[in-house]
């Protein structure tokens, strides 16, 4: 299986005031395409940093970040933006939906950047909402939906442009157990049926159990916890 994500000797440090804090110390990681990987670890261990690097939201100070065969460190800001639009779907803890747009309007956002016709955009939005089982709430605004429904809208938005990779930053962190399980099952479904590669950051061991591979960050280093063959 080819690697969807490849991090090689990645170093990342941040400036906090006058101090430079190194979060990743030469980290390496290979995630094959089609894998559902959970990433756990204490706050400040570098989980979200990895997500940001893989998603092209941040640059490594050294090392290589290769996603879908693309060397992200060689891409400019504009190129990264374009690349993100077609290759990565983001799912956030607090959904990050536009409160003034309907569910369908939110899901349509990534498609506005394409040259698709209005009818085709509408068709794809319908499919995405169908997958997350929210077709009947298409015209509802986020404020009129529960947390779980909002997260499903967030997932529909992440998959509507059919990116091969989904990056999830604590997607169930704001949900109750039952709703969280529904969302995690949905992610499993996307991984198994739609062959999406998923990298999910979580604090919740139960959420991590839904992944086929579990990693843990500790002091800037990765520890393999478990791998379940798909």
């Amino acid at each position, binding site marked *: 299986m080819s690697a969807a994500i490849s991090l090689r000797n990645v170093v990342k440090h941040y400036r906090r005031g006058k101090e430079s804090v190194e979060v990743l110390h030469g980290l390496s990681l290979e995630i094959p395409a089609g894998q559902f990987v959970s990433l756990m670890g204490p706050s400040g261990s570098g989980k979200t940093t990895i997500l940001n690097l893989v998603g092209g939201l941040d640059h490594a100070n050294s090392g290589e970040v290769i996603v879908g065969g693309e060397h992200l460190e060689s891409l400019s800001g504009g190129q990264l933006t374009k690349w993100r639009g*077609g290759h990565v779907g983001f799912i956030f803890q607090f959904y*990050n939906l*536009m409160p*003034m747009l309907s569910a369908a309007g939110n899901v349509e956002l990534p498609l506005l950047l394409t040259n698709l016709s*209005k009818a085709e955009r509408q068709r794809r939005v319908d499919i995405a909402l169908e997958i997350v089982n929210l077709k009947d709430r298409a015209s509802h605004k986020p404020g009129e939906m529960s947390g779980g429904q909002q997260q499903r809208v967030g997932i529909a938005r992440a998959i509507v442009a059919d990116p091969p990779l989904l990056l999830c930053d604590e997607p169930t962190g704001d949900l109750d157990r039952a709703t969280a399980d529904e969302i995690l099952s949905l992610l499993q479904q996307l991984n198994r049926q739609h062959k999406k590669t998923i990298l999910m950051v979580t604090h919740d061991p139960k959420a991590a159990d839904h992944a086929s591979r579990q990693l843990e960050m500790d002091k800037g280093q990765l520890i393999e916890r478990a791998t379940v063959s798909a």
Partner: protein
Amino acid sequence: MKYFPLVWASIMRKPTRAILTLLSVMLAFTLFGLTIGMNATFAKVKEDARDDRMFVFARFGSAVPIALERQIESMPGVERVASSSVIGGYIQDPKNRTFVVMMDENIPKVFPEYPITPQQWQLIHNDRQGVLVSQMQAERWHLKVGDTVVIVSPAVKKLDGSNSWTFKVAAVTPDMAIFGQGYMFGNYDYMDKARVLSDQGKTGQFRVKVREASKTPEITEQIINRYANSSTPLDSITEKVAFDVSTGTGMDIASVDRDVALAGMFMVLFLTANGLAQAVRERFAEFATLKTIGFSDNGVIALVFAEAALPCVLGAGLGIGLAAVISNVMPHFLPPGQGLPIPTMTVMVFVWAFLSAALVAFMSAGLPALRLKQMDIATALSGR
């Protein structure tokens, strides 16, 4: 167009704020339209004023002996002299103020540009009580050809002791920019023969046309000097100077007008810039999300610019529209004969308004756009 729902939804996210902003922009552009429209009127009046014509009037008092008309006309360089007096008063009710300019037969020769045909002039010379009524005045007083109109003039007494002046509408004629609220032209002879004896043989002012415009200052000086020691010392001013609002009033009204318009624009700029900065601040994480899912820097900035431009352009359109409506109805509510200028909504006024709206939108979006361009997505998403 596909981004319009996103822009519209962003603006209408806080409907009260959006509507109040739109209203403020609209009112500021109404003020802008009226002031710039006023400047357009001043410019038009100044442009139409001629430097080969002058006003000649009594330096002291309000009447000039009509006999001086021929004397002045005989002066070298003078082509023609006409006289005019005003019967100012009201129709039926003192609040219905109006006036009739009583003109002699030379007026058409001194003012050939007036949109009145020789036949129409002839009408008021054939019938001394005839009056030419401009379209605006005809509409205001519901007058048509053949109607009788009585003007009560407390200041101009008649021989019979009354002060009611009866006129018969001889023709309805086109309006002129110089008479912002319309006009009525009557026959001087009617006025002169019908008024009290002590006032007969006098007129309000002369309008003098000279043969060469370059000689106007010289002739002006000659007229003033010639009558300086007479029983009626005269004064004179060229039409160009008289109709230039930047002279003779002690201040440049046109530039004061411009300053008022600029102050209005600054108010709009401050308002929209502040509103937009606040809106962007409140939605920083949302813009970060847009950038995360693939919106470019320029794309996000374009959205912010559109958010600023929409209320500015819409407000400008509504404001200028309101200014145009006010300009149209204003003459009906202002007393004529007071020389009150009415704003003229020329194409340039609209062009200036829309250019200003675009500039205000551009400047309002400047700082928020810069902030969005410098945004660190990871930091913005984390809410730090």
